[in-house]
């Protein structure tokens, strides 16, 4: 039953490329190396931001801010942890700021009102077949709405742990390292998140 998420994070570096060598080259000022480093991780960073924030505009901002921070501060990277962990600390911090601001403003930008009811702008529940089946279409819409509502009920930290574990496929130990907490705390966070999600979805599951 155990599963790893389909979108498991992995650097898309060719096996021939030594990441440490690449990072040292960037620190020496090799711009081509920086670009290679960005391209190894940028897809998973963007996926995280899009799934977490459900807004392409916000995801673009996070993407740019994160890699600009990497660009500005790569000198300070001392190989105390993996580059992936270091990068994800930056990305998750920025995303958490967005989620917290959104909580304060009580925004959920991905969900918009339409004449047919609330609609997730980014959802992919409307498969082609569903158009021919209004009942299924309606059920999918309602499910999507319930999922967004349930996710919206999580604290930013719970949301982040859940996203990193479920969608990004990271191990809880790694998630703890990224978020500056223990593996145990990450486990508890995941438990609370799944309990809330199950309660939120109720009979839709």
């Amino acid at each position, binding site marked *: *039953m*155990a*599963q*790893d998420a*389909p*979108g498991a994070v992995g650097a898309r570096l060719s096996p021939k490329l030594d990441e440490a060598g690449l990072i040292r*080259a960037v*620190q*020496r*000022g*090799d*711009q*081509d*190396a920086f*670009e290679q480093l*960005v*391209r190894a991780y*940028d*897809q998973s960073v*963007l*996926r995280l931001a*899009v*799934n977490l924030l*459900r807004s*392409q505009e916000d*995801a*673009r901002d996070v*993407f*740019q801010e994160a*890699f*600009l921070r990497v*660009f*500005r501060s790569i*000198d300070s990277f001392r190989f105390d942890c993996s580059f992936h962990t270091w990068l994800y600390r930056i990305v998750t911090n920025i995303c958490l700021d967005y989620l917290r601001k959104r909580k304060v403003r009580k925004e959920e930008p991905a969900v918009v009102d339409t004449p047919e009811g609330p609609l997730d702008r*980014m*959802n*992919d*529940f409307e498969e082609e077949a569903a158009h021919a089946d209004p009942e299924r279409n309606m059920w999918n819409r309602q*499910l*999507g709405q319930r*999922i967004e509502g349930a996710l919206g009920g999580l604290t930013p930290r719970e949301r982040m742990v859940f996203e990193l*574990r*479920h*969608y990004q496929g990271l*191990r*809880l130990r790694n998630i703890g390292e990224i978020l500056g907490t223990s593996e145990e705390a990450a*486990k508890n966070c*995941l*438990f609370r998140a*799944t309990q809330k*999600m*199950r309660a939120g*979805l109720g009979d*839709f*599951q």
Partner: protein
Amino acid sequence: MNCESVTKLIPLYFYGELPPDDEDSLEQHLDACAACARQAESQRALSAALDRRATEPSAALLAECRHDLMRAIYRQEAPAMRRLQPPSRGGWNSGFAAWLPSLGAWRMPLGASALLALGFVAARLTAPGAAGSFSLAALTPDVVSSIRSVQPAHESAGAGEVQIVLDETRRRVVSGRLNDSNIQRLMLAAAHDENNPGVRWESVDLLRSHSDSTPVRELLLNRLAEDPNPGVRLKALDGLKAYTGDPEVRKVLARVLEDDDNPGVRIAAVDALTAHADDNMVGLLQGVVEKENNTYVRRRCVKALEDMNASAGTF
């Protein structure tokens, strides 16, 4: 293992985060306890529902993000060089400068200094005897006024008097030959007029026939990489066609092919690059074929690869 502890462990079990011994114990409990088995099923259903929500960012969005990032880094390039350039190790001096061809020269903030340049040149043109070597065919003052404010005149003035403040823009017509350095400086400044793409387009269109001049060529490279208007970028690219064998020009063209958001510009970049096909292009074109979402651009790259007897795919 009791029901309470199993409830807490189900999410960890589902995500494969339990040690093997705990996993065995939990599975034994699930076989014997229908209530906990229903919870495990509920966890699985939750996961299935959530999987349907997962969104994979489009290739176009990723390309836009990369493009925006590189633009932002271009803007930071000068301070970054100062910060990162080690005194004796080459570094950004060789790497970054190579990546951003002749950046120091052609990315200088001409746009910001456009007004200054215009003012400076215009002052020279209007100074007595400043005509110099070029012919000042016409210098026609034409004042355009707009009213900034209207108010009652000062108290000491007679009743019924008003004060009107006018803003005046003085228009002059200057003409001369394109190879004249003063005219060329005006044109280079005009090609950076950020408020008027029409003026930029006209300036680049006129200047492209003088791409043998280094400042003009640098301008064309700058406009090709930086201008927000695709029409201007295409004109700039057209002006560089005679230099498609130049390594710096090729680097910018490769960047444009990978990152420009306009398919027409990308197609023009493929054509310009293939005019001087070399082996280094194979990898670039294969990479574009793999990620390009525009059919025409992709076909053009495939055709270029076929013409080079290279495979369109990577293995």
